């Protein structure tokens, strides 16, 4: 049992209604853990139940998560989990998301981990809270627990008596350590989980309620803009700020080394002043970028750290037929529709930052180092931004806001990046390449598989202060952290590099390239986007060599019944193989992956046409099947997969970052076009295979890779030409298919 704990619990603090919210409850005392089994999800890291759930004297239920809403619908799904096991109406729950003074430190909202980590924790915590409430009611009513059940915020006895939750909680009853294996409801009895349930954030967003960090307008707020250097690493050598200081509305020009910004009364004044500052600034530019046309050869030649992540048998084995191929993926960007934004306020040695960062705790630690402030003096609160799809400029703009706010104490400062800054300075998804060798035997089975993938890191998140853009430009600059690979089983550049298919002889080598010619970090799916594109394209190449149907060929090499179910479902709903012969220029494409080989399963079948004269791909029907384990919000899963399909179609058919010898040249939507409405598929249908009672499997990134490969396979089917380098842009497709 728990040793007595005299520290203040959150519930008490909340109950007293004080503004002082203390997070002591997050830390179990040293004796709290039972030896042995750990509770599931992030409950293992934060086992105190009241770190996750609080019920106050009025019966108000607050649920805390260290994860953040990024537009993926996580708030809704987490509320569903809590409401289910607490047996209350979802509307009775207030959810508090990532906040360094209120919620568990669940690090980043990334890697399709939120349901696995936080959803699991909240589901299990809620189940135990219910058990505690039933225990308390049993004592109060003097009835055995077997005769009690939870219903609508009360514990109800078989004899009809009931006690409301608020009447059962008087103090610190929830300040208890989680059990390793709480008793969860039978999924058959679910009323909220797995059911149709509308997103809680959508009505406000669609009617103009303040929903984003961009919408914050605290009293006396100033607007600020940053002047970014003309190219990577440029030094600000000279600037006369006097003229800019005289411009209308200018409150403060902030210069710290090569960090340059301006704060003004009105927003448009900030933009004008930013342009004036840019005009006045003299820079020493030193950046030397590799030739874009040679980028893959350049990357391949850079020193790499090589790790054999899988080896079995002799991967060089020859078969009846063998193929060698090299696949390429260019730098691509997050390209949030709303450029990054943050609001910061510095007052009485305390800094508060409202941010759409994916990791408020790591950001806080980075800011502390950059500003040389104690961590406890910095409070980072997540407020939604425009969808980010990974590590975009969210943390960078928070650092900008912190530096500017410190220069105008007492006044909140809103910093909004401009479009060109977002396009030019965000960390891109890295360019990658891979070599594959594969062989099939006379019976059409894979006998050998060799895979080598080259990639930069896929995470330069804060981290150290040098990972914040501003941190690299202040007078005493910080160097970015040494890039590190993300280890298996999840992997970074080698995520999904290991094929899910059985092969007796196999070797997979990850070539990690520390040197980064362009600024890079995590983009949705990390290396899985490229690796699934390559592996699934190559599976079709091998299927052709084996004269097998691509779907049958995949099934031939798969044992996992859930993988097979997803593939069969997508094929069946699409009507795969039913149409014998397609017209010229028409093709069908299929691809499948289990994200990270341990998260959601996703298969995609599609039809497309390739216009021979222009190389333009037009997508027809797209059908997907997905298994995310227990589906908490099936429409949320569909929404995520639909989104992944359309977004990946854009990446795959159109997108690549461009650069010259010095600078990024894709600086807006005209130089970095993305998919627009007329180019959409005719239809997208997503079929969710629900697995009641099974663990949640991350879904958010599961569709990117399969969509890329399905398009590439469809193009190969339509044209007879295999294109192994992304994007499959009209120019590239036309060049490949010829006149």
């Amino acid at each position: 049992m728990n040793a007595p704990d005299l520290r203040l619990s959150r519930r008490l603090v909340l109950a007293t209604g004080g503004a002082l919210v203390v997070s002591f409850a997050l830390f179990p005392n040293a004796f709290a853990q039972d030896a042995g089994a750990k509770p599931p999800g992030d409950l293992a890291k934060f086992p105190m139940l009241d770190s996750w759930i609080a019920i106050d004297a009025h019966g108000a239920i607050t649920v805390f998560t260290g994860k953040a809403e990024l537009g993926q619908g996580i708030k809704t799904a987490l509320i569903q989990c809590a409401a289910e096991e607490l047996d209350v109406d979802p509307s009775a729950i207030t959810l508090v998301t990532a906040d360094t003074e209120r919620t568990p430190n669940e690090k980043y909202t990334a890697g399709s981990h939120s349901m696995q980590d936080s959803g699991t924790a909240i589901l299990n915590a809620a189940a135990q809270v219910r058990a505690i409430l039933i225990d308390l009611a049993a004592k109060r009513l003097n009835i055995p627990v077997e005769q009690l059940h939870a219903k609508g915020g009360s514990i109800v006895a078989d004899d009809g008596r009931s006690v409301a939750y608020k009447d059962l909680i008087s103090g610190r009853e929830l300040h208890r350590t989680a059990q390793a294996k709480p008793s969860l409801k039978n999924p058959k009895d679910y009323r909220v989980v797995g059911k149709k349930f509308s997103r809680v954030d959508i009505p406000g967003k669609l009617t103009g309620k303040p929903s984003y960090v961009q919408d914050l307008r605290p009293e006396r707020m100033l607007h600020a803009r940053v002047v970014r250097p003309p190219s990577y690493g440029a030094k600000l050598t000279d600037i006369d700020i006097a003229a800019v200081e005289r411009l209308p509305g200018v409150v403060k020009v902030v210069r710290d080394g090569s960090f340059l910004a301006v704060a003004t009364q009105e927003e448009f004044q900030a933009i004008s002043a930013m342009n004036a500052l840019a005009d006045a600034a003299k820079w020493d530019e030193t950046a030397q970028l590799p030739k874009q046309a040679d980028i893959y050869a350049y990357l391949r030649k850079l020193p790499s750290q090589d790790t054999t992540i899988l080896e079995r048998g002799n991967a060089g084995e020859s078969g009846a037929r063998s193929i060698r191929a090299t696949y390429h993926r260019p730098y691509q960007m997050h390209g949030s529709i709303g450029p990054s934004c943050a609001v910061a306020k510095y007052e009485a040695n305390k800094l508060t930052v409202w941010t759409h960062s994916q990791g408020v705790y790591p950001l806080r630690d980075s800011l502390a180092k950059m500003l040389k402030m104690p961590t406890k003096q910095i409070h980072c609160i997540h407020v939604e931004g425009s969808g980010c799809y990974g590590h975009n400029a969210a943390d960078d703009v928070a650092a900008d806001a912190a530096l500017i706010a410190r220069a105008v104490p007492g006044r909140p400062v809103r910093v909004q990046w401009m479009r060109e800054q977002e396009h030019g300075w965000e960390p891109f998804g890295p360019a990658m390449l891979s070599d594959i060798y594969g062989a099939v035997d006379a019976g059409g089975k894979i006998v050998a598989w060799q895979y080598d993938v080259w990639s930069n890191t896929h995470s330069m998140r804060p981290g150290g202060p040098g990972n914040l853009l501003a941190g690299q430009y202040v007078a005493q600059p910080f160097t970015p952290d040494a890039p590190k690979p993300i280890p298996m089983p999840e992997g970074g550049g080698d995520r999904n590099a290991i094929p899910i298919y059985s092969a007796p002889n196999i070797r997979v080598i990850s070539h990690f390239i520390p040197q980064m010619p362009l600024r890079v970090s995590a983009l949705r799916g990390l290396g899985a986007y490229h690796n699934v594109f390559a592996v699934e394209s190559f599976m079709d190449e091998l299927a052709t060599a084996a004269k097998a149907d691509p779907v049958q060929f995949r099934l031939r090499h798969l044992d996992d019944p859930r993988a097979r179910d997803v593939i069969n479902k997508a094929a069946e709903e699409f009507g795969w193989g039913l149409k014998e012969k397609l017209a010229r220029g028409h093709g069908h494409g299929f691809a499948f992956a289990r994200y990270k080989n341990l998260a959601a399963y996703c298969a995609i079948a599609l039809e497309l046409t390739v216009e021979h004269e222009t190389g333009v791909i037009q997508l027809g029907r797209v059908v997907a099947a997905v298994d995310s384990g227990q589906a908490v919000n099936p429409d949320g899963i569909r929404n995520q997969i639909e989104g992944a399909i359309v977004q990946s179609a854009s990446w795959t058919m159109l997108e690549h970052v461009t650069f010259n010898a010095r600078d990024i040249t894709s600086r807006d939507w005209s130089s970095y076009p993305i998919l627009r409405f007329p180019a959409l598929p005719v239809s997208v249908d997503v079929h969710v295979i629900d697995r009641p009672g099974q663990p949640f499997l991350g879904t958010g990134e599961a569709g990117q890779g399969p969509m890329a490969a399905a398009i590439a396979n469809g193009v190969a089917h339509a044209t007879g030409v295999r294109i192994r380098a992304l994007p499959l842009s009209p120019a590239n497709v036309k060049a490949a298919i010829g006149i």
Partner: protein
Amino acid sequence: MVWRILIGVIVVIAVAFGTFYAWAWRGEIPPLQAHDASSFDPSIVARGAQLAAVASCDVCHTKAGGKPYAGGYPVKTPFGTIYGPNVTPDRETGIGTWSAVAFRRAMREGVTRKGQHLYPAFPYDHFTYATDSDINAIYAFIMTREPVRQANRPPDIVFPLNIRLFAAGWKLLFLHRGPYRNEADKDDSWARGAYLTVSLGHCGACHTPRNKFGVEEQNRAFDGGEGEGWRAPPLNENSRAPVPWTADAMFNYLRHGYDTVHGHTAGPMANVAHNLSKASEKDVRAIATYVTSLSGARAGAANPESIKTAVTAASKLTAPAYGGTPAHQTTGSAAGKDSLGAKIFTGACVTCHHSGGGLPVSRPIDLGLSTVINEDDPTNLLHIILTGIHPLPGRAGRIMPGFEGALTDAQVVALADYLRTRFSHRPHWNTVAGALAKIRHQRQTAATEAPQ
């Protein structure tokens, strides 16, 4: 007597008509029984692809959202609308039954395989000058395209011009037959350019003014004309480009749709540049060499020094980066800092059209360098203000949003007047309101067309 005269007149008319009819009559050329796409020499097909790009065949033979070369594109003429026919090798609806002989006759004489006369919206008055080998190469390219079954749409031409024989009459009066008698095969860039410009490039079709019969006025060749409601600017010494064209600048413009001191292609010319990006680089250089030479003394005077001077002079006119209105302007005029045009410009345009070092990164050329602001007619400027500039779908390329809907007519007029006064030394336009009304009328016909 009266009888005799009458009979005489009738006889004369009958004979004249008979003679004309005999002249005009074109027999059917036997259909190809079958054609084998693989029978064409790939190198000739490739050459044909490049020449078809010079001729921009796809523009008039592809409707919006339609399959390439399958026809249906509306070509608007003063006499009605003609729809570019299906020229894919489909045997039913395309030209799959056309032999090379029939194809050459169509290109040279404007006659279908069956002998029907084509309206001169099809620029056979230019194609007639093309060499046999070039036409044959285009034929090889066309016949190796994907056959598309798409029925042709009959033209909406006013009576009596809808009688095809009128086209023959037009030809009798106006068509000069080729082939081109210049040194087309001579390895001389200028000569090659002259040949391509006059024949397949059919540049004069838009850039030479037409008389009331729709005939290019050869004594005013390249003096500026019209295409799809846009003004095709003069290519001769009457060019209003603030900076003289050089062959290199012209090559950039034609090949890449952009030159640093002349800016972007827009309107129908954007399609031409897109096509020329697929043509032979040598041919595009040749066209650039020839077209540049058309401006005579101006072209001769273009040297690095004079270009630099002109660029500097034009750039001086350009707007400041921020903080309101141009300093040198007097109040009261169309370009005065209190004028409506100045206000619109400062609020709506300066974001991109300024000369400072700030954002945006990909900036348009200085407006002082802009030809559309310096032209004699405001039509092109108005088109661009209303509908902006847009790349092909999914392709990178400069975007300028259109202000149709955002600005009232009075505001557009004020803006155009302001731009003219502010960024050009040429005289005031008196025709802005009229030109605007005409464009608005054209655009209203496409009510739910995507706003740009």
